[in-house]
């Protein structure tokens, strides 16, 4: 035994005698993870969160979360002598006087955008592959929680510098608070410690931004990962992969090396963006004063769809019992997002209620094999894109020489018309792809080689696909319809009828090729 091994062994033994860690480590380092690029999307979220913690800590060393008035005398000449809040002045100080401060600010902001993008793309992966199904419903809920807190955290973050744009955003947040019927004004007064803008808001959201929400993130991410660990990772279908095993690489050394390397790559890409692309140039916006506003004031993209909904909402207001209810803010700012997020959170339960599927699932669905779910996802994405487009309607109008009113009217109607069309088209595409799979299994791959038979007939040579591929294309369980309701259950009730209708629609599927079919064809013509 080499000397170094001896030392390592005795250190390990020392630790093990005091913690009993050896058994746990041995078990878990050999844990197997399946390997696929889409399983690394969640990792991007985790790594950008770590980048956010590190760069954010750096920024706290100089940031002064105070709304007291100061006169700026720093390095940025166009603002020298201008009176502003200490929060804004200290952000300017970080940007222009602290070594590496601007780079860190930009890394922090880009990492926040990447964090949110990665969460959403990860959510797409989980949704479209059906990874949220039993037993992973809780982890879906935690994910929705992380997405929601991420939106809030991001909003609070870009509100902190107290520049003209962030102040505008806070003003809109105040308006949304005030739109809550009856208690709205009280809530706004409570949050701002008096009338807008006051001096209390930025110190308060600073504490929420750097203490409360990061703590929540850490807790939720830990539970999220522990559940992944405990329930084991899902895997894509393929030969040798069943509901009862996990095919992949052990954590140590393969996965650990890959994950560790990927962390540095994510950090590198974020730092690259921070170095070459300006983000949130607060010095150009100027300090916030309630009397000023800039054309094209936008929130960051993860709030942009909300802004788009508010921008397209018609001017509706009712007055009742001495209270004004501003539907124009309440509807797009609170009610609609509330419905969307509740629906998203409850989706795993809704789907299993419709399909009656209470089995455990560890093999993922190929999106085409769940046409309704895939179509619903595509429809939701279409909805989001339309509202997001209206959130940037002024920038779109100036850059593409369109009229802002035209964009608004297009999105007002498009919001209701386009998503259902997208649903139908996606569902048809999914069923067509199922048919294509079936053809591929039964008839093989088209080679493009045309052969002339002795009798003059021209045929295209088809090549059999591999057995592994055949397995992958045929392994899925078709979504069976619920047993037909018995005659006396004509009194199903509205809920029951709705469920039966949706169950029937969900069961529409092109049957996968079977062995018998394949054999029959093999004997025949092809």
């Amino acid at each position, binding site marked *: 035994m080499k000397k170094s091994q001896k030392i390592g062994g005795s250190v390990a033994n020392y630790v093990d005698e005091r913690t009993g860690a050896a058994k746990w480590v041995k078990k878990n380092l050999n844990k197997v993870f399946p*390997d*696929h*690029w*889409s399983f*690394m*999307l969640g990792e*991007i979220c985790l790594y950008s969160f770590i980048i956010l913690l590190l760069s954010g800590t750096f920024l706290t060393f100089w940031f002064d979360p105070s709304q007291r008035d100061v006169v700026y005398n720093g390095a940025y*000449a*166009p*603002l*020298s*002598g201008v009176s502003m809040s200490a929060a804004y002045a200290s952000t300017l100080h970080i*940007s222009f006087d602290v070594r590496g401060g*601007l780079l860190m600010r*930009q890394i922090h902001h*880009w990492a926040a*955008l*990447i964090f949110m*993008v*990665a969460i959403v*793309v990860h959510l797409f992966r989980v949704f479209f592959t059906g990874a949220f199904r039993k037993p992973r419903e809780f982890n879906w809920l935690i994910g929705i929680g992380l997405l929601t807190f991420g939106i809030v955290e991001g909003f609070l973050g870009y509100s902190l510098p107290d520049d*003209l*744009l962030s102040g505008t955003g806070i003003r809109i947040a105040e308006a949304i608070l005030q739109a809550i019927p009856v208690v709205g004004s009280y809530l706004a007064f409570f949050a701002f410690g008096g009338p807008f803008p006051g001096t209390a808001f930025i110190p308060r959201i600073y504490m929420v931004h750097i203490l409360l929400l990061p703590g929540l993130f850490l807790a939720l991410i830990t539970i999220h990962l522990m559940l992944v660990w405990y329930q084991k990772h899902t895997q894509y279908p393929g030969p040798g992969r069943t509901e009862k095993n996990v095919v992949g690489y052990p954590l140590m050394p*393969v996965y650990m090396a*890959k994950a560790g390397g*990927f962390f540095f*790559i994510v950090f590198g*890409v974020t730092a690259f*963006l*921070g*170095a070459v*692309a*300006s*983000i*949130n140039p607060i*010095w*150009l916006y*100027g300090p916030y*004063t309630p009397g000023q*506003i*800039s*054309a*094209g*004031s*936008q*929130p*960051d*993209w993860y709030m*942009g769809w909300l802004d788009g909904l508010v921008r397209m909402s018609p001017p509706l207001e009712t007055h009742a019992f001495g209270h004004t209810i501003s539907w124009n803010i309440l509807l797009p700012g609170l009610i609609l997002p509330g419905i969307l997020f509740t629906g998203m959170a409850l989706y795993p339960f809704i789907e299993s209620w419709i399909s009656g599927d209470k089995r455990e699932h560890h093999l993922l669905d190929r999106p085409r094999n769940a046409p309704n779910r895939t179509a619903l996802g595509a429809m939701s994405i279409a909805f989001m894109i339309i509202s997001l487009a209206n959130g*940037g309607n*002024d*920038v779109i*109008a*100036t850059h593409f*020489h*369109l*009229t*802002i*009113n*035209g964009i608004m009217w297009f999105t007002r109607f498009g919001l209701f018309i386009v998503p259902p069309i997208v649903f139908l088209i996606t569902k048809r595409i999914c069923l067509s792809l199922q048919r294509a799979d079936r053809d591929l299994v039964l008839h093989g791959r088209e080679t493009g080689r045309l052969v002339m038979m002795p009798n003059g007939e021209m045929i295209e040579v088809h090549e059999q696909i591999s057995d592994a591929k055949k397995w992958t294309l045929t392994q899925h369980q078709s979504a069976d319809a619920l047993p037909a309701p018995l005659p006396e259950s004509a009194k199903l009730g509205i809920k029951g009828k709705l469920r039966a209708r949706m169950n029937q629609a969900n069961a529409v599927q092109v049957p996968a090729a079977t062995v018998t079919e394949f054999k029959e064809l093999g004997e025949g013509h092809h």
Partner: protein
Amino acid sequence: MKRLSGFRRKRIAGPILMVAALFTIGTAFGVASALPSSQHEMSSGTSTLVSEGKAIFLRGCSSCHGLNAEGGGIAPSLIGVGAAAVDFQVGTGRMPMADMSQQAMQKKPLYNPDETAALASYVASLAPGPSAVTNESLNFERDGNSAEGGQLFRTNCAMCHNFAGQGGALTNGKYAPSLMGVEPKYIYEAMVTGPQSMPKFTNTTITPQEKLSIIKWLQQANHEANQGGASLGRTGPVTEGLLVWTLGIGILIGIAVWLAMKAK
């Protein structure tokens, strides 16, 4: 009182009143006629310019603005808009208008500077209005204060022209143009005359010195180096979101795919 009414009845009162009245009218007439004549003398060189301008006006502008610039159904009256308005509208190519769309677009000027000056002096001769300025007459470097200009810009201009003067959308396809690369005199004249949808900023709302501050700040913003890398158009978070959804997540997914391939 008694003495005054007594004087009124004297015979001499009538002739004295007559002389006084003649004297007053004569003086008033003299003063009134002297004013235009002195202006005429001063601009005897421009009288040819005015008639030249009128000729151009009749050819190029009168079909919409009327033979005497009195305006018509589709174009406003130009009486009293001053030389500044003509210098701005014609000098930047906005007038003559290319088409009757939402707003006159900036394009290559149709008239050369001499013709523009002639048109301007014709319109100025119709009624007094703000006069044209030159880039040289605006010493914004000396008289302006860019920090003050920035504050004034954010208060009065940014709501349409964006925080960095990049322009912005208005209703029904109208827009506030980008102010980047616009000559100082045109910015000054636009503030004074309020072209298209823009409000007029008279010297009482924004003093000439404050106007110079705004110009100084704009010039600085125009030439300011992009701190922190590519500017992404200085239009706010929309382009940032676009970049992160394309290049940002694109690179990361590309690398993830590559890493997963390597394992095989």
